[in-house]
């Protein structure tokens, strides 16, 4: 079990590092063109590619962690992913519809959907975990 726990900790740390790195490169690619390198096209393209590569590595680290889960943990996360995917599509399109029909004042923002996905997934994992306690 100690080996299992150590391996789990190692994979969680790896995912945390790539996630923070992805967030940091996202911030650099977002604010760099205006505040650091004066909209230089090469540097902007380079920053975006670095961010994309970080994103791919974050996904691979997440897959590594998922593959280390046992059968109950996999079930919990798969159920949560199914709920999150369904809600993201339905709520995301409703949100877009509200924008295109001018039912909301502001434009629909992708960041709102990303936050919704994150909170839905977190809530689903907590509820599913409590169900099996």
């Amino acid at each position, binding site marked *: *079990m100690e080996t299992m726990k150590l391996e789990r900790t190692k994979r969680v740390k790896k995912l945390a590092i790539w996630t923070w790195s992805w967030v940091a490169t996202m911030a650099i690619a977002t604010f760099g063109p205006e505040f650091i390198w004066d909209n230089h096209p090469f540097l902007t393209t380079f920053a975006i590619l670095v961010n994309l590569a970080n994103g791919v590595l974050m996904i691979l680290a997440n897959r590594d962690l998922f593959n280390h889960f046992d059968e109950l943990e996999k079930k919990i996360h798969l159920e949560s992913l199914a709920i999150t995917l369904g809600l993201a599509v339905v709520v995301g399109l409703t949100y877009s519809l509200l924008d295109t029909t001018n039912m909301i004042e502001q434009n629909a923002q992708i960041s709102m959907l990303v936050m919704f996905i994150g909170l839905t997934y977190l809530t689903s994992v907590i509820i599913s975990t409590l169900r099996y*306690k």
Partner: protein
Amino acid sequence: MKNRIRGLRTERGMTQEDLAEIIGVSRQTINAIEKEKFDPSLPTAFRLARLFDLQIEELFSYEQG
């Protein structure tokens, strides 16, 4: 699915953590199986049956509904 895991485990003086370590799953999974909230996969069921030196049908019983 009903099972006799909790009784067999305590008879042998094992904790859920001990059993989880031997079977290769988390303690939470052993707890969920014992409380019959989660049915284990076939490989896990076989590992449990072998550990307690029983046939699978002696360890687990299926009740419809």
